[in-house]
């Protein structure tokens, strides 16, 4: 089956790229591999029938956030230090393996029952593109997310102003 094949190609690529982000000594290569793992996540979204989200993932994560991270690495470049571990290397490994074991145990032991129909949410048939339906799901008067959408726009404005205020050079003030 095509979806299954795509999953088995994309998920090792994604996990390998994410591992390389953590383990590589060169932080610039780590950032490039992070962008690769973002692209693989977009592919995973395609296997889950989330075409609009795949496009958003490529635009915002692989495009905007990737470029932003590379900019930050260039501006704070410290070749000698690279991307080292701190002294919590072993405890952090133990903690994250414990978290992984717990979560996988819960996932495997839970009986994920599916429901046959839902009343409060927008549903899309599997052979349809989701973009138009997402507009309905976001902006519908009864079951939409209009207030969270407006709050998100205020959050973006606050982040924009905050970022400008934080990096402004205070010495050059006239």
């Amino acid at each position, binding site marked *: 089956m095509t979806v299954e094949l795509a999953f088995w190609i994309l998920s090792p690529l994604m996990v390998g790229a994410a591992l390389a982000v953590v383990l590589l000594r060169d932080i610039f290569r780590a950032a490039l591999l992070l962008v690769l793992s973002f692209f693989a996540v977009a592919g995973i979204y395609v296997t889950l029938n989330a075409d609009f989200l795949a496009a958003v993932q490529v635009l915002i994560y692989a495009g905007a*956030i990737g470029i932003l991270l590379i900019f930050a690495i260039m501006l704070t470049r410290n070749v000698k230090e690279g991307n080292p571990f701190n002294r919590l290397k072993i405890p*952090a490994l133990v903690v994250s393996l414990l978290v992984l074991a717990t979560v996988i145990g819960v996932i495997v032991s839970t009986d994920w029952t599916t429901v046959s129909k839902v009343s409060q949410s927008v549903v899309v048939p599997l052979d349809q593109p989701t973009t138009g339906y997402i507009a309905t799901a976001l902006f519908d008067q009864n079951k939409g997310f209009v207030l969270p959408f407006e709050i998100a726009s205020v959050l973006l404005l606050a982040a924009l102003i905050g970022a400008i205020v934080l990096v402004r050079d205070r010495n050059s003030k006239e």
Partner: protein
Amino acid sequence: MHFGLEYYLVLAAVLFSIGLYGALAKRNAVAILMCIEIMLNAVNIALVAFSRYLVPNVVLLTGQVFAIFVITVAAAEAAVGLAIIIAIYRSRQSVDVEQVDSMKE
């Protein structure tokens, strides 16, 4: 076990643990921010997987809408986080989180 929700959830759990390990064990602040982005991506995969597999043969859009909000907040967080890192680098010429401890003294 046939191919389905559990595979995506395990993938999300693996990706989340990798991000958690990096966020706890790295010294470079930009690397920590990159690992946080990996963790947010893992959560998004879980949300979208639930939206696909909760009801058989249709896509339930609420999970995808939640993922869109997570992406929005992640973009804001990346912008502010990197601005803070650049401000710290300006004042200290370093992005090592173990040296940013002036509030401890």
